[in-house]
């Protein structure tokens, strides 16, 4: 399968599936669900194909096409997929000869504004793609609990998946934006129609928050679009790779980088979410149906982090470095704040939601520990931080999806989430309690499980940046242990169940068991052997840090030579 | 007064008189008769204008077909008192006045135009350069007579009269030799071929068919719908 077909299919297969579901008569709920599950499974398999195509030795964007230029020809050159090549000194070599390459799939889309259908993947996006399609399968398996308007639900779910996968594959800023928005609408309806009692409130809150972020991102996008005209050899461009090269050469001026970074960061931070922009999250999570909570926590939050790494940092290295301290402060504060807020919750799902705020704080900290230093080790620490942040995203995707699923399972039975009205579940639902404890331990950051690796690597990287903030970050481990253990005690332990609907508590069924067990298994695999992720993303992150360092130095040099006012 | 002049005036008077009679007659059947007179005279005028095929068509279709059709209509719809339905005299005068003004308008237009000059301009434009052939560059029926064949060719998409008449010797046109014509068509590069009317012809044919079907459908006998039944 050619890369163009493969990537396009990955993105749009869920859409095709959604259209196909339209053709199925409404009342065949079971067939509809199985069909939708099939679509997500096939999508997952396709992403595995992608993983198979992925060349871990090449840190830059893939797929790589060889440009076959006929001498003197005016026509656009032919592109040929480059399967076997080796890299040395940043050059792409084949059979010992350097070849001219184009990275990523580029198909003109809206020629008037130079917008392209540009797709590609590297070590940063591949793990997230896998996570997305994987969590989608599990969330779809968890969707059997949805009984209302099943067909509409499944169609929106599949559209949502298209949006998510598109965001992780798009390399054109405009295309990225489109997918970003595509994701928003199904989510709005999924919360607003299939949600809990305050679903309208939660849906509109989610929508407005995210829309605000999108608007800020749009402004930044246009800034870069028009700002690129002076530096790009052609006209204005939305091409993220070209924009990144411009930024790497320090050609965006400092003022613009600072403004754009703030805009982009707020846009992405809302999605992450970090401290001042996080209040949509608890409401959205609490009201959303279980599978949608899984998607929200498992994938949507990761887009914020991905956006920062893919767009905000590469496009404004100077701005990023300028704002790094603020970012770390925000991240550290989110960790502590989220943990404190989680501790005070009496609603099970809300607690898990706040734990997401806390855990995603590590992501921001890990990305932002960028210390400008002549010592090469500083860059290594930053790499440690970004790797930790990326791993934390994956780990949180697995563990928080699991936690929300755990909450959903018990909610389906007893129809309440009041932490003070649980207890004794370990006796009534032994497997459930065992798996839940495992997943919660993964969230707690227990070694040997996924949460640990991300948190600890981020924490380790933080001291080099700021000892004070590092200590604050490290203090998060105490609070996390506090609220998670307290939760386990209140829900699973104790002599008896104290809430209503005690008679409806039944052991997990096979489907529920499968979802939870698979998530726990992955939590353990990732925690015991994290290289499966670091091998994928390490090279790309190393390249990213070096590129950004270069971009920062160039932007700083531009100021000193041109005599522009710096800060 | 040559015969041509005579015949022209004869047919002109018959035409106009017939038409006027149609206007003033109240009885439908008589109107139809006067119409036949008028249209028949028009056919005569066509012959005078060397449009022999058109004249024949006029006689056949109009006088022989349309008017008969009209009379059928009269007979199918006529029921005693309605053979004559009068309009008020005021209306008649109003119509007459407007018609007069209209006539004045057209006549003045006819006289306002310098037709010869226009023809010359047209001819020049047509051939891309002044030919200098004279004031009558048009299709010369005296030389070429029979119009049936050229019209048939035109309807089939070829224009021997245009493509050949002005550039080729006239005798070639007279013989109407197919090989020569095809040669002319294939002479090709520097000569731009005029388009014929094949497409229009086809459309008209289909149109006619549709009209016939439609007319039959419309005119078919059908049960009158009672208001009570509908309610």
């Amino acid at each position, binding site marked *: 399968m050619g890369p163009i077909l493969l990537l396009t299919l990955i993105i749009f297969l869920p859409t095709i599936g959604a259209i196909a579901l339209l053709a199925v008569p409404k009342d065949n709920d079971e067939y509809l669900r199985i069909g939708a599950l099939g679509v997500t499974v096939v999508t997952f398999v396709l992403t595995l194909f992608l993983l198979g195509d992925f060349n871990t030795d090449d840190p830059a964007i893939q797929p790589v096409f060889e440009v076959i230029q006929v001498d003197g020809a005016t026509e656009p050159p032919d592109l040929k997929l480059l399967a076997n090549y080796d890299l040395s000194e940043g050059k792409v070599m084949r059979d010992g000869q350097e070849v001219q390459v184009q990275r990523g799939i580029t198909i003109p889309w809206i020629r008037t504004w130079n917008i392209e259908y540009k797709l590609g993947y590297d070590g940063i996006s591949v793990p997230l793609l896998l996570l997305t399609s994987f969590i989608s399968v599990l969330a779809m398996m968890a969707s059997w609990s949805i009984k209302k308007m099943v067909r509409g639900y499944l169609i929106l779910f599949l559209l949502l998946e298209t949006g998510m996968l598109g965001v992780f594959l798009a390399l054109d800023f405009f295309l990225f934006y489109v997918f970003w928005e595509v994701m928003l609408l199904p989510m709005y309806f999924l919360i607003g129609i299939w949600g809990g009692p305050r679903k309208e409130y939660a849906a509109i809150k989610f929508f407005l928050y995210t829309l605000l972020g999108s608007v800020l991102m749009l402004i930044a996008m246009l800034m870069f679009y028009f700002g690129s005209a002076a530096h790009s050899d052609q006209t204005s461009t939305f091409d993220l790779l070209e924009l990144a090269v411009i930024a790497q050469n320090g050609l965006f001026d400092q003022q613009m980088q600072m403004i754009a970074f703030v805009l982009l960061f707020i846009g992405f931070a809302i999605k992450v979410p970090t401290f001042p922009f996080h209040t949509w999250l608890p409401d959205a999570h609490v009201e959303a149906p279980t599978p949608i909570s899984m998607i929200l926590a498992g994938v949507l939050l990761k887009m914020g982090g991905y956006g920062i790494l893919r767009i905000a940092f590469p496009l404004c290295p100077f701005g990023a470095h300028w704002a790094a301290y603020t970012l770390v402060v925000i991240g550290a504060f989110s960790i502590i704040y989220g943990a404190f807020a989680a501790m005070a919750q009496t609603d099970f799902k809300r607690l898990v939601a706040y734990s997401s705020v806390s855990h995603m704080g590590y992501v921001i900290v890990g990305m932002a520990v960028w210390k400008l230093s002549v010592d090469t080790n500083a860059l290594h620490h930053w790499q440690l931080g970004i790797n930790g942040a990326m791993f934390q995203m994956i780990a949180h995707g697995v563990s928080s999806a699991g936690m929300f699923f755990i909450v959903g399972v018990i909610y389906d039975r007893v129809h309440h989430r009041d932490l003070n009205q649980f207890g004794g579940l370990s006796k009534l639902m*032994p497997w459930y309690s065992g798996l839940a404890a495992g997943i919660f331990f993964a969230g707690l950051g227990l070694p040997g499980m996924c949460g640990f690796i991300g948190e600890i690597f981020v924490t380790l990287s933080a001291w080099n940046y700021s000892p004070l903030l590092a200590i604050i970050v490290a203090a998060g481990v105490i609070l996390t242990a506090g609220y998670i253990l307290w939760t386990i005690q209140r829900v699973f332990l104790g*002599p008896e169940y104290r809430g209503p609907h005690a008679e409806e508590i039944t052991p997990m069924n096979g489907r529920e068991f499968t979802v939870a067990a698979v998530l726990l298994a992955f939590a353990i695999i990732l925690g015991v052997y994290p*290289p499966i992720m670091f091998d994928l993303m390490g090279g790309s992150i190393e390249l990213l840090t070096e590129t950004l360092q270069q971009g920062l130095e160039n932007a700083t040099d531009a100021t000193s030579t041109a005599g522009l006012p710096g800060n | 007064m040559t015969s041509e002049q005579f015949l022209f005036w004869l047919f002109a008077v018959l035409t106009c008189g017939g038409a006027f009679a149609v206007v003033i007659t109240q009885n439908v059947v008589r109107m139809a008769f006067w119409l036949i007179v008028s249209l028949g005279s028009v056919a005569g005028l066509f012959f005078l204008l060397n449009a022999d095929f058109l004249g024949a068509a006029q006689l056949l279709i109009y006088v022989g077909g349309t008017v008969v059709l009209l009379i059928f209509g009269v007979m199918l719809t006529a029921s005693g008192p309605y053979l004559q339905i009068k309009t008020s005299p005021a209306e008649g005068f109003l119509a007459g006045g407007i018609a007069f003004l209209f006539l004045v308008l057209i006549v003045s237009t006819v006289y306002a135009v310098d037709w010869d000059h226009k023809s010359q301009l047209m001819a020049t434009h047509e051939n891309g350069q002044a030919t200098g052939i004279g004031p009558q560059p048009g299709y010369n029926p005296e030389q070429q007579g029979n119009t049936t064949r050229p019209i048939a060719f035109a309807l089939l998409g070829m224009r021997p009269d245009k493509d050949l008449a002005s550039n080729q010797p006239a005798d070639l046109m007279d013989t109407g030799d197919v090989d020569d014509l095809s040669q002319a068509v294939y002479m090709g590069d520097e000569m731009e071929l005029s388009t014929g009317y094949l497409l229009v012809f086809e459309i008209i044919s289909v149109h006619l068919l549709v009209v016939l079907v439609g007319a039959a459908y419309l005119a078919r006998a059908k049960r009158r719908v009672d208001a009570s039944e509908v309610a």
Partner: protein
Amino acid sequence: MSSETLTIEEFQEIGKALRFLLMVAWLLPLAGFAVEIFAGYWGHRRSKMASFLAVGCIFIGFACSLGALIHWGTLTRWGHKTVAESQHHEGKSEGEGQTGILDAGKLPVEFVALADKPTAHKDADNDDHHTTSGGGHKDAHHEGEHHDDHHGPGTPAFSGGFYLLGSFGDIEIGLDYYIDSLTLIMFTMVTLIATCIHIFAIGYMSDELVEDYVDHHAHTSDGKHVHRPGRFYRFFAFMSLFCFSMLGLVLAGNIFQVFVFWELVGICSYLLIGFYTERKSASTAANKAFIMNRVGDFGFLIGLMVIVTYLGTFRFADHEVNGAAQPGLFTMIRGADGHIDLDQTVDVETGNDVNVVLLKGVDGETLTNANGKNRTIPYWLLIVAGLGVFGGCVGKSAQFPLQTWLPDAMEGPTPVSALVHSATMVAAGVYLAGRFFPMFTTEVLLTIAYIGCITLFVAATIAVVATDIKRVLAYSTISQLGYMMLAIGIGGWGAGLFHLVTHAFFKSLMFLASGSVIIGCHHEQEMPRMGGLWRKMPITAFTMLVGVIAISGLAIPGISIFGEKIAFSGYHSKDEIVATALAFMQMNEQHFLLFLVPLITAGITAFYMFRLWFYTFAGEPRDAELHSHVHETPWVMTTPLIILAVFAAGCAIGGTHGPLWLGLLNSEPIGLATGLTGQLSGIATPSHDAVHAVHSTAGMYALIVAATGAFVAYLLYGAGVIDPGDIKQQFVSLHTFLVEKWRFDELYDAMFVRPVHIVASWCVGVDRYVFDGLIHRTARTTIDVSRWDRKFDEGIIDGLVNLVGNAVFSAGRSLRVVQTGSLRQYIMFIAVGVLVLFVLLFAVFPS
């Protein structure tokens, strides 16, 4: 120097064998855990298979560990053989490096070839093991006469890697191993004790072998006892998991890995303390244990951060990164001779002079940065790192101020208390302090000493008044751990770890004995209800007495058999600690408390231990009803008691000439034998000679104090000469204060727990009222604005549009009359229209 040497190849062979044996011992319990947890659930509730599997795993582990210890001992002549210097002076040729890597590649797990250096200051060779200078490196002229057979640098440690968790530039984080004599002794000790305890637990936990277990300590809301299925299998699964974690901790080759297993033993402890999940007190105690440990781990984490930031590696031993030899932590800080190289530099930000430590490379050179500057770590940050890691030890070993979780942890089943909360996990803090010793500056060591000193005293005083048999032992454990910490803090590295091992044996023995008592008394733990039990359960009573004597440090002075003192293990180890403390006090007189407090506490220890024994076993039964049902426990429980009693009595045989002591000393950090001197603090630790000089004096002091304590206990509880009730009356306020455990729980509750909850509720309030309030206000404002907008729209814009619409409409109405419907009139209109158009045309364009 030593005449006996090992070739590199021999050394490698030993390393591979040790690595294999210890890996088996380490991983078998994990496999056991996996099988037990799944098979146990599906298996029969009354099946003992889980316990047999667990015992089997840990016993094979013990066999492997013992085999490894013997293998190492015989091949290195108990650590006396050094590794031959390589004849390749330029040793690091490509070929050799490749061979090492290739050999490594054949191993079943990914194996990172590490640079090998027989001694830190000599030339390097490549193989898959690394020898660190940390182990047994002593200068010959400081050898005391009591170990004159121990010359020169001993056998270095074996180290290597299993696999990398991640590598980022030069920073590599992975799972490694580090095997020296300390590792081997710990392995053997842990697996031996664990085996005994596992066997004991088969008996102790046998009441779980039912379909319907009635928990008499847990009540439902209607006052009934909780019924639940028996969880025999789960207990053994957790125990196996714990053994795996504990052995991993001991085997760990880098401080990060220690942290990993540190947390894992913590969670196992959590699971085992909270084994009776239905009991609120159990789950709360479990939470408390884990969270207090996390507080310590917070410090640990800070230590890790400092280390990775300034030293860039976690590995203890020298190793290889990207093909280049890299020094391990110990080499970097201590170099080859155990001295910290100080330098002064100007701080970039403040402009002040700061003391920094120069980092040393594998060949003893000073490390430099890419830009040529010396690589350094600020001295105060080295202190922070040390204190941070020690913070972890404080949490794990229940040292002051994090000691309160351990007594509560007695909620777990007694075998758990024996294994986890006395012998192994809590001792891990001491183990780590010992393992990490080269990284501690003298300031840190002094802190450790004082923390240990406070702990041992506080815990001992509480133990005096405790009445729950297990809690007495728990406080005793804390106190003894304090002794070990104190020993390490004052430079008695060997003494501390010596006591760790002996304590593990006698304390696990006592816990098991108390477990036996509890079973015999049908789950009665209060000593006031016991008494006179020795007649009914003699084996338990006498094995317990062995433990009591051992911990009290009693011995028969002046008499020796075959040159050995008649003394149990505790005498030797405590003796060594007191001796070190005395020597330390002589060198640093301002710190006299570090000698006096442990000395006095030795007496208190003897007192409360004998109090326990007399209270429980001697005298007349205080509860006839209970007494009538008491019975001796079955052989499956008494056999482990006897085995452990033998070890408790004899493991330290020979004292400072015995194999245990010498084996441990083989791993002693360099420089300690001659004493360390803090360059900035001026604090000095005593050398071996200094300790030896005061050994007999200190031993006499300790013995007198202990005997006094024991005698007082006999007077009070054994002979009944003095009524303890009277004394209680005399010191009622002090008694209450001690019973309330110095009120630490209340203090922490007020200082930390409640403030955390208050802050938490503030956070929620901020979210709800500030952020959401802001959003809601914005939303309301928006709605207001849209209302005005609506009015504007409806009034003005719509008004205008409607106006136009109305005008058009009325125009249409008036023009309607033209639409007559009459065909003829339409034709007329057309005609008139044409006329008008033409007229207009002519009027406009008159031609």
